[in-house]
């Protein structure tokens, strides 16, 4: 999107995490969800986080997404120290710099796709006209120009997730955070969504961080970080990422037929 080349060359990574820790106090028991995470993510990266259940992936995403604060270490978001901000400042950071995509889509029900995508801009104080223009643009990018006025409950899971992606990218965030975005989708739709991310990453130079359990899905990204018990156990470049568009083309036609019927149903 607007990721100008001058910013892209800036040496400061978008995400700089140093020894980040998070402990949940459950009565007497302290749950160490993050035990010291250090990680840098630069502009234009497409990273997958993997790890077994309870390894701290979601906790990490919440901290990166400014929904919560750690209790140790440091987190710099585009050079801004997010670990010391108050509630309102975090809300502002989320609004301006973070795009969330959730496993359960989390669109406002009975609200049109367009209105859902406009919502972050409402909180950013963008005037109505401008809001509409940018929301339409975002929906075009995720290939939903023809579904703008559909309410979220009239859309298929894959379509809802694409609306959610449009909502995430409409503010031109520093990073898109997706916690298991394909977890509720069938395998073909999952590949479609990964295709949308790939397109955003390649053509619009968006920085994307995806949590996934599925190694297949992680193969569409360019770097995989493994979590284990609140620590990073492995961090590796994907030498040869899969191409979602190519994989989709190779999938059986039957699926498409079923999908188009499903989409046509009221």
């Amino acid at each position, binding site marked *: 999107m607007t990721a100008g080349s001058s910013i892209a060359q800036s040496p400061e990574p978008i995400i700089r995490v140093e020894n980040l820790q998070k402990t949940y106090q459950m009565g007497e028991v302290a749950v160490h969800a993050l035990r010291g995470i250090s990680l840098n993510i630069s502009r234009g990266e497409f990273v997958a986080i993997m790890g077994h259940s309870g390894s701290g992936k979601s906790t990490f995403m*919440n901290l990166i997404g400014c929904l919560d604060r750690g209790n140790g270490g440091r987190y710099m978001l585009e050079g801004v120290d997010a670990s010391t901000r108050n509630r309102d400042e975090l809300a502002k950071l989320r*609004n301006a710099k973070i795009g969330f995509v959730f496993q359960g889509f*989390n669109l406002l029900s009975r609200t049109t796709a367009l209105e859902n995508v406009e919502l972050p801009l409402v909180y950013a104080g963008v005037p109505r006209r401008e809001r509409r223009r940018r929301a339409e643009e975002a929906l075009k990018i995720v290939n939903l120009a023809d579904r703008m006025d559909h309410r979220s409950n009239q859309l298929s899971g894959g379509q809802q997730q694409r609306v959610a992606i449009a909502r995430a990218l409409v503010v031109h965030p520093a990073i898109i955070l997706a916690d298991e975005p394909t977890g509720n989708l069938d395998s073909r739709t999952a590949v479609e969504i990964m295709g949308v991310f790939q397109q955003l990453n390649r053509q619009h130079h968006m920085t994307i961080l995806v949590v996934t359990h599925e190694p297949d899905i992680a193969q569409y990204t360019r770097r995989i970080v493994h979590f284990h018990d609140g620590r990073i156990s492995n961090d590796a470049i994907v030498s040869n990422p899969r191409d979602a568009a190519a994989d989709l083309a190779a999938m059986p036609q039957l699926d498409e037929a079923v999908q188009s019927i499903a989409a046509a149903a009221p």
Partner: protein
Amino acid sequence: MNPLSVLPVAWLALMRHKMRAVLTTLGIMIGVASVIAMVAVGSGARMMIEAQVASLGANMLMIFPGSTNQSGLRGGMGSVSRFTEADGRAINDECPNVAACTPVVNYSGRAVYGNQNWPTRINGVYPNYTEIRDWPLSAGKLFTEQDVERATKVCLLGQTVVDNLFPDGGDPVGLYVRVRNIPFRILGVLERKGQSPFGADQDDTIIAPFTTVQHRLLNTTSVYIFMCSASSTDTIYKAQDEITALFRQRHRLQPDQDDDFTIRNQADLLKAQTESSGVMQMLLGAIASISLLVGGIGIMNIMLVSVTERTREIGIRMAIGARGRDILLQFLIEAVVLALAGGMVGIGIGVGATQLITYVLNWPTLLSPFSIVAAFGSAGITGICFGFFPATKAAKLNPIDALRYE
């Protein structure tokens, strides 16, 4: 975030549960409706009392013998009279702010015409009585100063007396009525005046020259009361002070002695009357505020339910950048929209109820735009007050917990 942009959101959220919204705002509706109807009834009553007091005569003062006791009642009027006609003349001569003054005596008895008779009260007064009481004639003419000097047997009839002595209609002017077997020639008829503030029929009266009633009917030398009019509304209290000073001097009262007379003006009468209707107003106001309170609690309750139901929505909004105050504003506006919608319906009901009271119960009412605005405003304030707690609760939610809420 622009508060106006929340309005459609709030409206849609309410429309999702129409029945619930209607039931919730029932209290507000009743509250607003009762405020409007009650103020209308109250001001209607006051308007009527004011009209009645005004009908006593413009800027009128009454002077009674005897001092005022605790309950505001006088010792038997006329029975211990110390007033004389000379007192009245002194008022006319020495009180510059008194425009006119007449002594009054009255005789209660039967007026007879032909085979009709009617029990009424004959007031003996000076001709300026009609001026003091602001009471024009509908027919005939007034008696004169000379009639007073000569104690002429003439009179003017009130409409009620005319209606009862001349049931077949016809012009009574020039005919004679008998009181205590004395024939009084009818000089004229007074215009209809209606009820007094005390509920008495003011038209059930005959007026005759002061001396005629004093000597021929009562056979007394005393004056029961004086009726005066101040030169203007602004000088009522000045006139009252002048009369007080004059009477204290004439009655040779020492500074430590209480007045042996009582002066009442229209404002006093109005106050006494509106005090009783004020109690009524207060009662009605209490009902209205209780309804609004109940309505407010209803709104608070439903907003708390709404916040819980929409926890996930709140989480989503927070995740994409809503600050606490944005959420607060959203729910507050929703509560206010709910209250104002109820208020709007309440206005309709209140106006309708007022019409019903006017045409079915035949009570005087006065719909005041101020009360409508005030009632609508209190509905809005109720919404703000009782919406605040649920809205604060929503604003304080932790985004992560809210997002995870099922």
